[in-house]
């Protein structure tokens, strides 16, 4: 019974510490001190990020049930940064009277889902993995329904929990079949035992759809738009960025670590799903009026692009995936940030409400434009680089047709991103959104995102570093 090895799990323990401190603070602090709750939470979380951003040596805990790889530090740090940005953007929302009482829960639930993702990422065993997955999704359902007296939020919560449970039970059934056909659930032992029998393939498919659900790939994506629309905007952004980011990383790790021998099976699957996701999501995105739904579909198609990195199954794929997630975090969060600020102040969420935004809110429009260009993959913004690397990853394994289809789809995606740009810059409106002064925290988040979107692409050491470490896996 040597528990000392547990202490190596710095990230998890540090996050757990933050969670517990916040929980206790929320419960026991007097009203006078509670107004510092959010700044304290943000500072604590920042400390957590800083403490855990340096990669360490590979190690295993509990006989391989938990396996740390240096790249995990990066992906976790990226997710942390994203979460921090979400916190910054949610500050105003949580300071409202109706929500003040629930903000302790907000932080706790958010961080517990983050913890679940940590375990998903570092899992070395299906049990820990499954637990992490559930920890990441069940509290998430509570978060989706956070704004509980809002019908839409309630509906979104119900949709999310029911479908998540459905997906997770299918996934669980899949895991049981994996166990049945191999006899072990340890990731380190599995590759030798997976030989590609039909049962294993069936098991793999059943298992993988649970992840596809979380990544929201077509046809497992249908929940995404409704949930994104219904949930409070900051939670939507968390859901679409952090949750998805962790899931794609995990999918990649599992595919190359555990199911490497099924590569001839999962490559075609991913091929089809990538094409479907990108195309269908784009088609849906074209005609969305509601910006959150719109971004939901856009993020589905982004997930499709990420599959291009996964499908390569190579170190380049890994590094471009992590890089893509990093860029995607900033780009998408910037967009969601703008939406949330505007929704918070005016309640306007439709694209046509954004007509003439540039005239009244040039800064917000500027941030929005940068994020949309980055999402569309337009140089010199970061999104261009991440897309290029993802395409390179796929092309390096000869998936030229896939790259081609994906690229054709970028035309459609550019079209709908431009629709918003058009609304903001070109259209005139009789009732434009009045000038908005966003709060300090939101502005900090915008500054961070803007800087990142502009600079990340040019600072090649970021990618080089990721690449260096991803070779180690």
């Amino acid at each position, binding site marked *: 019974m040597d528990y000392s090895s547990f202490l190596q799990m710095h990230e998890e323990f540090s996050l757990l510490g933050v969670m517990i401190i916040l929980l206790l603070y929320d419960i026991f602090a007097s009203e006078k001190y509670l107004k510092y709750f959010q700044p304290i939470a943000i500072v604590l979380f920042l400390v957590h990020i800083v403490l855990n951003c340096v990669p360490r040596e590979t190690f295993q805990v*509990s006989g391989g049930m938990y396996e740390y790889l240096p790249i995990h530090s990066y992906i976790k740090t990226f997710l942390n940064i994203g979460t921090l940005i979400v916190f910054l953007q949610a500050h105003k929302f949580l300071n409202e009277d109706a929500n003040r009482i629930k903000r302790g829960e907000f932080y706790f639930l958010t961080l517990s889902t983050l913890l*679940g993702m940590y375990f998903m990422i570092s899992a070395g065993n299906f049990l820990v993995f499954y637990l992490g997955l559930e920890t990441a999704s069940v509290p998430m359902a509570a978060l989706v329904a956070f704004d509980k007296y809002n019908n839409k939020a309630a509906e979104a919560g119900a949709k999310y929990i029911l479908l998540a449970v459905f997906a997770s039970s299918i996934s669980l059934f899949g895991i049981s079949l994996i166990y049945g056909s191999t006899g072990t659930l340890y990731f380190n032992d599995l590759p030798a035992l997976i030989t590609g029998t039909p049962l294993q393939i069936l098991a793999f498919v059943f298992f993988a759809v649970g992840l596809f659900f979380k990544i929201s790939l077509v046809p497992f994506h249908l929940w995404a738009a409704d949930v994104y629309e219904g949930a409070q905007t900051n939670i939507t952004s968390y859901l679409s960025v952090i949750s998805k980011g962790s899931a794609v990383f995990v999918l990649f790790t599992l595919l190359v670590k555990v199911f490497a021998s099924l590569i001839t099976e999962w490559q075609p699957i991913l091929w089809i799903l990538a094409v479907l996701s990108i195309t269908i999501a784009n088609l849906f995105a074209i005609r969305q009026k509601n910006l959150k739904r719109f971004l939901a579909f856009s993020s589905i198609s982004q997930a499709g692009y990420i599959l291009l990195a996964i499908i390569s199954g190579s170190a380049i794929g890994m590094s471009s995936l992590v890089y893509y997630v990093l860029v995607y975090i900033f780009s998408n969060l910037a967009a969601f940030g703008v939406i949330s600020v505007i929704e918070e102040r005016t309640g306007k969420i439709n694209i046509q409400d954004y007509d003439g935004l540039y005239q009244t809110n040039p800064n917000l429009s500027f941030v929005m434009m940068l994020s949309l260009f980055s999402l569309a993959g337009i140089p010199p913004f970061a999104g261009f680089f991440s897309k290029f690397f993802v395409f390179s990853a796929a092309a390096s394994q000869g998936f030229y047709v896939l790259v081609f289809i994906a690229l054709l789809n970028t035309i459609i995606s550019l079209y709908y991103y431009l629709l918003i740009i058009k609304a903001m810059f070109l259209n005139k409106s009789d009732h434009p959104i009045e000038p908005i002064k966003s709060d300090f925290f939101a502005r900090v988040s915008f500054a961070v995102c803007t800087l990142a979107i502009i600079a990340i692409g040019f600072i090649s050491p970021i990618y080089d570093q990721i690449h260096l470490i991803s070779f180690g896996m």
Partner: protein
Amino acid sequence: MAEKIIFYILGAIIAIFSIMAVTSKQIIRSATYLLFVLIATAGLYLLLGYNYLFAVQIAVYAGGVMVLFIFAISFTNRPGEKVHGEVPVRKLIAGTTAAAGVVFCGYIIYRNIRKVTVLVQQYNLSPQKLGETLMGTEKYQYLLPFELISILLLACIVGAVMIARKR
């Protein structure tokens, strides 16, 4: 021989009540059928020699979960309100798909599973071994998931309370 007969009985209960649980018109009956299924499953665990699992199944499922269900049903079930029946077309499609799923998965599983005809008898899962594996940090020992699920439970409680409470 007794084992087999018991299995058939439990199997029959599970199969029949599963189907009834998903077809019954009244929700409280559905819940009851579910309870039967869960108890029968517990019986299966016993049959397999997993006494501890049997206990947990009874305690958590038949005890905790079912109470939640009953509570929720009584909270949401307004007397006199008729539950809408299912749409036949939807039943047909879902039934066909489910049947196809059974056939497909059954075929794959049946063809590929390692067949064992002789079961190792006198299987004894001692409480000590249980304790060691549950509290250990080595391979095949499960302290880590145990701690993890505690966090999950905490988070779910916080979440559920937040949603369910009035404010």
